[in-house]
């Protein structure tokens, strides 16, 4: 679904503006909400990481602490394949989601990576139930062939527990 592919073409990581990043993050959110996961995963680098720490350990280090999600590229691919299948029972049929990104801030470039932080609210509707995930994204973005790409995405939940949302079967 090329219509949803993120548009901005950027020259170098040091020239990236907040508007470029916002466009990119909004496009990512649109792909997630459209369940275009095969297009979405192409936004990630081959050495990417997608991490969601446990609610009580926001600083959790996946090499030492238990986290909710710790995906490298292989596991992220498995997650996408799972969610694309009819056997991911928790997400078949899929929830309707609305990924809302705000308070986007760019941090100083480190090497070839641009750290970005943003706030998120992800609404999830399925059956009679409406749940909301609230928290903060920390991205590390790179420029690959003129496009922003995600080297790391960490979604730290602000909620004290998952009691109100049950699980993290969707992608935040």
């Amino acid at each position, binding site marked *: 679904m090329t219509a949803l592919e993120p548009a901005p073409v950027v020259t170098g990581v040091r020239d990236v503006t907040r508007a470029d990043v916002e466009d990119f993050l909004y496009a990512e959110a649109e792909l997630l909400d459209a369940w275009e996961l095969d297009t979405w995963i192409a936004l990630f680098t081959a050495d990417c990481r997608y991490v969601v720490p446990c609610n009580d*350990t926001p600083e959790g280090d996946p090499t*030492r*602490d238990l986290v909710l999600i710790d995906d490298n590229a292989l596991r992220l691919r498995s997650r996408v394949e799972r969610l694309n299948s009819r056997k991911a029972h928790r997400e078949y049929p899929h929830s309707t989601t609305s990924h809302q990104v705000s308070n986007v801030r760019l941090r100083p470039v480190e090497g070839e990576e641009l750290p970005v932080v943003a706030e998120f609210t992800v609404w999830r509707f399925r059956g009679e139930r409406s749940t909301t995930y609230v928290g903060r994204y920390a991205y590390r973005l790179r420029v690959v062939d003129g496009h922003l790409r995600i080297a790391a995405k960490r979604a730290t939940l602000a909620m004290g527990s998952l009691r109100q949302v049950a699980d993290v079967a969707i992608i935040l």
Partner: protein
Amino acid sequence: MTATFDPTRQLAPSGPLVEEDREHHRFRVHRSTMTSPEIHALELERVFGHSWLYVGHESEIREPGDYVRRPVGNRAVFMVRNKAGEVKVFHNSCSHRGAVVCRKDSGNAKVFQCFYHAWSFDTDGKLVGVPDREAYGDGLDFGALGLRPVARVESYRGFVFLSYDPDIMGLVDYLAGAAEYLDLVVDATGDAEIIRGTNEYAIDANWKLLAENSIDGYHAVPTHDTYFKYLVSLGTDLSGGVAGTAKSLGNGHAVLEYAAPWGRPVAKWEPLFGEDSREEIGRLRADLVEKYGEARARRMADTNRNMLIYPNLVINDIMAITVRTFMPTSADRMEVTAWEMAPRDELPQLRQRRLDSFLTFLGPGGFATPDDIEALESCQQGFHSGGLEWNDLSRGMARDPLANDEEQMRAFWRQWNSQVTGVER
């Protein structure tokens, strides 16, 4: 409520809530046990008021003053190590006017001071500070105004339990056959710790559905297809399948014990663990053989265990070890809290595989647990559809029960029935 009103009779007018017919190999459970608010209220009193309930692991409070706060059996309590190194569990309420005195989930404290009027208590619960003490008369016994310890607290091999029933049997007697299985886990783990990071989620389903699900070998293949595909993508050879037995351990506890295709950090190597950990796993295994003999070491290293300690503690010793407890907040909802246990000094690459295994299989962000949650909520929704009155749990009644039979659930239900309705097991 009149003295003669018995909601269990009211709700299953056709007879008992749990019905076992050995001659016809039929075991069934009335669905009102899963949906009735009256039965839920009875359970709170008869099950959770009169069982040993898991509080936490001693490794969570290693130093004097270390504490953790959490609800146990829907009551707010906290567990603290006192100056003498003993584990204490208190009701979290000031003896003065009731406010909670421990206001953080974990930490270290010499005293717990109530913020309301600043009464302070030491780690033995003793009242050690009262502002304006001279305002009280000489007759008041401040010694009797300490924090209230819960009625019973006992620990088995690092697992701390409490009971609100002062007259309950001792913990070791209560654990019955489950003690030996805890020994297997603890002896294989050595110096165990609860890893930082807690899974705290909830399921809109009756809590007994998770008791069943945690020891249900039958659901694994149909429900967890995407997880097994993931294992295959990692290179795990699943052709060996899962084979084992199910058994009742007494007092409602039950276990599945089975061999499976995946490796175990203690101490069964598989290629996924990497060549660089082969030697270490060999060494761990040799240690077990030396300490416990070949047969017991093989059992510890090679077999997996899914154990339910009645009523609401699950110890699954698979590739990762989970300590999971759950508590109903109504007939239709439960809260689940799960931790990962591991050897404290473990090679980083083994710890990584253990963490990976836990979060992909056992965690609420993984490739399996969300589908269990879906299954349990689906059952709960199905019960409310009505029409059918009974759940069937007859699988394996005509043979020595296998790990994918339902004998382990029958053991749970017999105990539950005995506690809730007074029917002899």
